[in-house]
């Protein structure tokens, strides 16, 4: 049986807040989100002059009666969106100083996001990657598929290096229609590749959300004594007294985070720090509330 990755508290708060698209998305059915396509639906948008070939059912007869001119009534069309959730599955995601590893936290966060999205009748597609796409679950808007999503998440084991070049390219190919791309990763890869990947996703019209998944120990470097650090993504080992280099490490790490943040901002992506020490519900609801407050464009 699949591991239940859904955090009831996170799901509960997520349900209340919802993950609404902040941009116009290209859905495939009527939904809650604004579609780029103007049609003849419920909500009036504008008039335009009649041209040959237009369906006369949309002719505004009242205008025609008063002004003897032919105008077509146009309406806005709400649609659903497709959220592509991409979870980093590199070996570095296996690190966890507390109860949970970054990978587990990312999986749980992905599951909760998927549940919330499906619950509001939007579609979710899931991609697991390291140097390239390792697993992909095509879009679905059925809440009943949530267990399937969780099974796929739970079954995934992180190995290999982090590389954004190929994996984000593959993600961009899947997310051709304008939707939401949610990236969950520690982003310990090449920053230029990350930037080019995000650029491509942004140019595709996608709204990108980056959950920068980090362990608390990686942020604070609290170790005392002498440690031999072994690289999770390689054979390298380093022995040092963390207290001696704490200041330098923290500066390096903070600089790195700021660079990631600037990359995200450059491509209008939301940067969310997901500290694995914090409750999942807090991270998720915090972001959703922020998102809700900023409103639609």
């Amino acid at each position, binding site marked *: 049986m699949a591991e239940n990755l859904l955090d009831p508290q996170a799901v509960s708060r997520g349900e209340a807040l919802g993950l609404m698209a902040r941009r116009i998305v290209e859905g495939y059915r009527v939904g809650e989100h604004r579609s780029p396509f103007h049609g003849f639906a419920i909500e009036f948008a504008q008039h335009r002059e009649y041209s040959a070939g237009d369906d006369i059912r949309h002719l505004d007869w009242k205008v025609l009666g008063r002004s003897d001119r032919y105008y077509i009534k146009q309406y806005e069309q709400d649609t659903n969106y497709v959220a592509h959730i991409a979870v980093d599955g590199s070996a*570095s*995601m*296996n*690190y966890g100083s507390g109860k949970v590893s*970054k990978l587990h936290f990312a999986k749980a966060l992905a599951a909760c996001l998927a549940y919330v999205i499906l619950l509001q009748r939007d579609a979710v597609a899931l991609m697991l990657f390291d140097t390239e796409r390792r697993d992909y679950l095509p879009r679905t808007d059925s809440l009943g598929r949530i267990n399937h999503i969780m099974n796929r998440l739970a079954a995934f084991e992180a190995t290999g290096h982090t590389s954004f070049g190929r994996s984000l390219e593959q993600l961009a190919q899947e997310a051709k229609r304008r939707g939401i791309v949610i990236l969950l990763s*520690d982003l*310990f890869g090449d920053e230029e590749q990350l930037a080019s990947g995000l650029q491509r996703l942004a140019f595709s019209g996608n709204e990108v959300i980056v959950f920068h998944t980090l*362990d608390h120990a*990686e942020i604070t470097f609290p*170790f*005392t*004594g*002498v*440690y*031999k*650090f*072994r*690289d*999770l*993504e*390689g054979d*390298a080992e*380093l*022995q*040092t*007294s963390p*207290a*001696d*280099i*704490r*200041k*330098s*490490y923290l500066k*390096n*790490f903070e600089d*790195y985070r700021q660079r990631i943040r600037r990359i995200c901002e450059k491509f209008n992506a939301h940067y969310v720090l997901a500290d694995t020490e914090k409750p999942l519900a807090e991270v998720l609801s915090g972001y959703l509330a922020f998102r809700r407050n900023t409103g639609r464009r």
Partner: protein
Amino acid sequence: MNFLQPAVLGGLAAIGIPIAIHLLNKFRVRRIDWAAMRFLADSLRKNERRLKIEDLILLVVRCLLFALLVLAFARPVWQALASAGTGGGTVAAMVLLDNSASMQETVGASTRFDEARQAALKWLDSLDADSLVGLGLVSTRSDLVVPNPVPDLSLARRELGAARTSDRGTDLAQGIRQAFATLAPLTGRPREIRVFTDSQISGWDKLAEIQRLVAQNPGIALVPVPIGEGGPNIAVTGLSIDGGVAAAGLPLRVRVDVANFCDAPVQNIRVSLSTDRSPSVGETNIPAIPAGGSQQVEMTISFAEPGPHLLTATTPPDALKVDNERTIAVNVIKTVSALIVEGGEVDAMADRDGYFLANALVPVARDKSLRYYLGLSFARPAALDASALEGADIVFLCNVASLAAPAAKALSDYVHKGGKLVVFPGPLSNPAAWRATTDLWNLLPAEAGPLQTADAASPASSWQSSDFEHPVTALWNDPSQGSLGAIRTLRYLPLTPRPAPPGGQAPQILVRHADGTPAALEWGVGLGRVVLFDSGVTPEMTNLPLHPAFVPLVQRLLGYLTRSQEARLSLSPGESFRLNVEGALRGREFSVMMPDGTRRGGGRVEAEGEDSVIRFGDTQSVGGYQVFVAGGERPVGAFAVQLDPAESNLRPIDPTELAALTKPSEKKTSGVESRLVITREFWPALVALAAVLTVMEMILAFRFSRAR
């Protein structure tokens, strides 16, 4: 450089402790899988050099800290060669510090005693820690403040710091004798007696005894440490009443001896006299005193009031203050009662046995004799008894054939209690009868033979004309005072001086005949004194009554006898004072005004048999003391504590004589002519440096964020 505790140097291995901790920390490694490796590697690359330097600095500081502490505990010292016998090493020693009055000589801001104390402390500092040291303060007595050598050198240092000078004289021999006795039983260490003294010559009076002690104790080294070389000194070495009776209102001749202990003559020495702590009552000037000589000056003063008085002679201040003044106590009398017992039964005044004597005792006109201080009374031998003697200050026996046993007993009791007796034989005197009367015979300072008469075969014997030794007749050593050589004895009792009684003094010759036989003797009996002349005081016995020296001789004799008790008013420092007072004062408290003018409670007047006695023992300081009984404004007694005149001679003993005390054999056994002595210890500096390093280590560790 050497170490007093070299074994502790093994502790230098402790330097390995910080190194071991450093290495252990390197090996106590925890392993951990880590994701953010590139940030770690980057930080390490940037800080590697700095970290290594910081690690090295901390390691060096910590090693240095351990090394300094170990070195401090090893007690590093700087040693220097010192000549043998100047101290140092491990010894069992008795330190004798001269605290006699001469050590009060000032040298700039300090005194000889301060210099001696510093020299002793310096020598103690040079000793090894396992030495044994005792300490004695030596003057005319020895105060062994650390009686036996002990390993606690700080005790000796403390006692040295608390030691004070005294006003006593110097007798190093008795202190050295005690030190030899103390060190004799000790074994296992070189033994040494170290005497810190100004080495004034009088302190080594008993050099022969000291040399004998050194010879008897070959294992004990005696090391005199002379302090200073003795400076110039002018001192009042003598002060006395000369001449007649010290009576109220009568002029009194005072003799002052001033000595010059300088190597050069001194001139214009001002001598002043004062009484009862008052300003000067008389001054005189000594024109010059030759180097090493002394000068005697005579001054005349008078006391208005009878009673106990203090008389002080003062010279100008110099380096040794204590001998610049000298004080004596004088009992100024109001009246003297003299009893003349005449043996001949003659009515004509001029023919009486005591006629000439009476005129000599009261040498004033008849109308003035009633106001004269001396009251005369006459008695017959048969009437002589205790009641007749009561109230008499002096009794003259003139031409007494003999005394009845009760009279002799009464006379003996009278003398023993302090009465004065002068015996002038006469034609009636019968030595055989005297001998039969034991009480009388035992009083006499000489055995008298049968009456001799001068004739052609044995012409009259004349008195000596010079070389008088007794204070009464010493005046006639000065030819300007006349000569006693013209006194001729026509009839006399040949005198044979008695030997000194057990514990007593031998008779003193008052005056001799020209042939050397005694013409008059005197001695002390009990508390009194007895003078025996070989002839009488009538012209048929001798021409003395007709001689111009007769009146002065009688007056001087009277003065001498009335002042005979005053010898007890001059004490040595520390000697106890005793004074008989009226019975009415018994039980009352008394106080004593000390030489510095302060009053000190002395206790109560005690009963001693039938007598009421004041005793006072706190007489360490030289000067005048006055005794007051509670309720009385005038002193009931006075006495003076006097410095030993020899103490004023600051000249040191010949160094070669002292050098002879340090036995050659002792030098040989020491093996070396010079040895290493500690001149400086470094442990305090090392401990201070270690403290600084500790603070530095804490600051550096904090700066380098060393949590371990």
